[in-house]
């Protein structure tokens, strides 16, 4: 079990975490016909928007309640009401997901209560579903915001179980914030190949997979459909990925009575085996031949790839669940996690990380630890580029944000094929750094001569 070290510094230099409202906005983007609304000053939205656009290279619908000085002092519920009305009139979204920010949470009003009053007195909003999640920037990170938004959607949209609910060959999937659209697509495909119907919340694979539509739509296009979210009680099982999705999954379970399984990760042979076995059990179908083949390909990739992992020193910085998934992947292939830095400390998955210590800190902590332990690769998001450059080691980009690479939405790392591809990505990174041997590499083939015995002249005088 790893020792968890909380850095006691007043300053964060090169932050590792992204803020909770951003995570919530991301979750709301996985719903069809949606616009996320950040309740804060316009800068809160503008910074988040720019970052999302840089990551996905897509147009992102994201709006703000534009809190200015007077509203900040007198109260923000008027701005929230006005924003909802303006959005409804202008773009007619089917869904508006509100996430609060540090600014309005510092003021501290009962926004959920205000929202209820607004919805009651504004008939114009009758056709728009509106949910609210409390996500102050000063508490938690991307994961926490994502999970809270999903919980908010579940508690206000999902219809609780009733005798009228007809069971259906449906599996609910609650992906973590670290799943890419490609990951979600692969999971849906897997569930479907067992003759089951997947309902994914949130589903970025429909909305942020990078596609060109035939018209200009000011809301999200694709993603989880509200009608299906309502009917999550029909499922035979719920699969959640990552410890941060446990709370939303349990909330869903308590509302609907649908049993659930939380997978810490779906990267790696053993977790994939568990998933496939579970799907086979749930569906009553035998494992399709293609998975036997894919599994075999993964086993082969592990055999071919292990040469490049064994004894390698890895430094990883990420949100807790991604950190957990990646460190198990690397350690499972024989690499050594010499530096593990988590963005926040509020996750039980940190205990299980296969490293001596886990630091709760920033990219500077990661850089310092990587230098101290001689890490050979830095595994974190794009902001690690400055540190990797200073350390003169390669940067493997994972998580959010990745703004200096294309195709991040299509990077696959779950399932047999995702794990296989991940092994190749890492091995290729190391092969690209292949070192040509020089005599100096073998300087310690013989033990160094002991100084007293071999020196016949007195050592030079020291000054």
């Amino acid at each position, binding site marked *: 079990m790893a020792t968890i070290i909380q850095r006691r510094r007043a300053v964060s230099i090169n932050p590792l975490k992204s*803020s909770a409202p951003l995570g919530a906005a991301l979750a709301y983007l996985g719903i069809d016909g949606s616009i996320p609304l950040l309740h804060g000053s316009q800068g809160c939205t*503008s910074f988040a928007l720019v970052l999302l656009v840089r990551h996905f290279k897509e147009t992102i619908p994201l709006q*703000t309640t*534009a809190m200015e000085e007077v509203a900040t002092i007198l109260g923000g519920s008027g701005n929230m009401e006005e924003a909802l009305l303006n959005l409804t009139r202008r773009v007619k979204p089917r869904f508006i997901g509100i996430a609060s920010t540090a600014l309005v949470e*510092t003021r501290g009003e009962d926004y959920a209560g205000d929202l209820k009053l607004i919805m009651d007195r504004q008939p114009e909003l009758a056709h728009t579903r509106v949910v609210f999640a409390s996500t102050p920037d000063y*508490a938690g990170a991307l994961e926490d915001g994502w999970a809270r938004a999903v919980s908010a959607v579940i508690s206000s949209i999902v219809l609780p179980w009733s005798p009228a609910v007809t069971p259906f060959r449906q599996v609910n999937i609650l992906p973590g914030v670290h799943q890419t659209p490609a990951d979600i697509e692969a999971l849906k495909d897997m569930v479907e190949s067992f003759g089951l119907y997947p309902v994914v919340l949130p589903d970025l694979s429909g909305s942020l997979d990078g596609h*060109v539509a035939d018209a200009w739509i000011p809301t999200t296009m694709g993603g989880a459909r509200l009608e299906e979210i309502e009917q999550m009680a029909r499922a035979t099982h719920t699969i959640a990925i990552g410890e941060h999705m446990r709370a939303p999954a349990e909330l869903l379970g308590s509302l609907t009575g649908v049993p659930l399984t939380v997978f810490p990760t779906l990267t790696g042979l053993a977790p994939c085996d568990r998933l496939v076995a579970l799907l086979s059990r749930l569906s009553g179908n035998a494992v399709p031949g293609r998975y036997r083949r894919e599994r075999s390909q993964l086993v082969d990739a592990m055999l071919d790839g292990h040469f490049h992992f064994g004894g390698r020193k890895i430094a990883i910085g990420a949100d807790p669940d991604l950190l957990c998934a990646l460190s198990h992947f690397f350690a499972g292939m024989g690499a050594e996690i010499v530096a593990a830095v988590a963005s926040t400390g509020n996750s039980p998955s940190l205990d299980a990380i296969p490293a001596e210590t886990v630091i709760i800190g920033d990219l500077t902590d990661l850089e310092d630890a990587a230098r101290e332990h001689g890490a050979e690769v830095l595994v974190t998001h794009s902001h690690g580029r400055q540190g990797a450059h200073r350390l003169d080691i390669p940067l493997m980009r994972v998580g959010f944000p990745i703004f200096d690479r294309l195709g991040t939405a299509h990077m696959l790392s779950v399932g047999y094929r995702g794990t296989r591809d991940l092994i190749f990505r890492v091995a290729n990174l190391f092969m690209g750094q292949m070192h040509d041997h020089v005599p100096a590499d073998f300087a310690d083939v013989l033990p160094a001569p002991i100084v007293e015995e071999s020196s016949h002249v007195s050592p030079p005088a020291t000054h």
Partner: protein
Amino acid sequence: MSESLKAKVTELFNEPGCDKNVAKGEKERKKGCSKPLTPGAAAGGCAFDGAKIALQPIVDVVHLVHGPLACEGNGWDNRHAASSGPTLYRLGVTTDITEMDIVMGSGEKRLYKAIREVIARYAPPAVFVYSTCVPALIGDDVEAVCRHATDKLGTPCIPVNAPGFVGSKNLGNKLAGEALLDHVIGTMEPEVSTPTDINILGEYNLSGELWQIRPLLDRLGIRLHACITGDARYREVASAHRARVNMMVCSTALINVARKMEDRWGIPYFEGSFYGIDDTSTALRAIAQLLVKQGAPADLLDRTEELIASEEARAWQRLAPYRDRLAGKRVLLYTGGVKSWSIVSALQEMGMVVVGTSVRKSTDNDKKKISDLMGGDAHMVDNIPPREMYAQLRRGDADILLSGGRTQFVALKAKVPWLDINQERHHAFAGYDGMVTLVRELDRSLSNPMWQEVRNPAPWEVGDIDAFLDDAPLLVPIS
């Protein structure tokens, strides 16, 4: 909002150097220049964003943001303001205040410790400390902490008081200028000072644009004392009050700095632009004239004319090969201020047709220039909502869109070429050289064969697959 900040904002709205403000009545001026924000329909950054944009290009200092994570965490290292040396400015440094700091009111203590820690680790010549909404709301006195830290630690700590909720990005630019005036400019003396020293205000060296201008000034023997703030060192800015002339670019973002430097140190200023061939020449001329008026040798004027003549000729010569390729292509220019007209003449010289230019952020002066260049105001467009712009581009109203990142996907999703000419651009478009780059990029974009291919619909969507496959007669359907 603290009293001092309120006074600052009021003062900025009364800026006598700003034509727009002067033209307003007393009552209107009191309301300020920022348009009221509409919740649910607002775009653009906040005052903190603006302040950061204006100051971050000072490359050798630490920029420390006092606030919760998002303010710095979501926005650091996101622009291409280039440095010729130090990289300290690219660090993302924040106090990342926690719920506990807010509840216990320990924000000021945390800020002081944070300042101490960054000075211990990096020993910068100065620390710029930005206030944000939450510290402003709970009443952290950033100015007092900076004063105390400057005294105790011996490194200048510059408070930048522009919390997001006070207003727009533009107001933030100006508040950043105030911070420079109050705490930086005039606090140091330059090591050298010459009769041809100038400052450029409002140039941020995005993608290295300053380096397209600098060689021109060097050739003329004009010394760029301080660029405020592109690729600037703290010392250069702190001693900028000894320059002879200020040139103000980027419209009026730092007009308060230019005017107050004139008041305090008698440095004349003019507004100019390095976008476009004519504008670059006009700017060089204006610099030379003002310098000569300030006591520089009179031959500077002749040498400037010589350089302009030869560089203009060279630029047009470099542009000539593109004329045939670009003639007749239609451009929609969706930017603001100076750029709404400054590059029009180069595009027209290429035989391109500017079908519209937006005047959203333009002054009356800008509009007059557009009208002179394009014969009337028929081509001026205001704000175009994305849906409308998409429809126009789909219709084929323009062959290419020149704009900023916000409208990038409107063009791309309509399968129309797009070129970034705003702050996130990756190419340097300043000076004579920059105009050649711009035209080259236009050509690269327009002539890419990919456009035709992506516009072709899938064969099964236009009907007859057999017709599509009739060059392969050996394919026989199964049934």
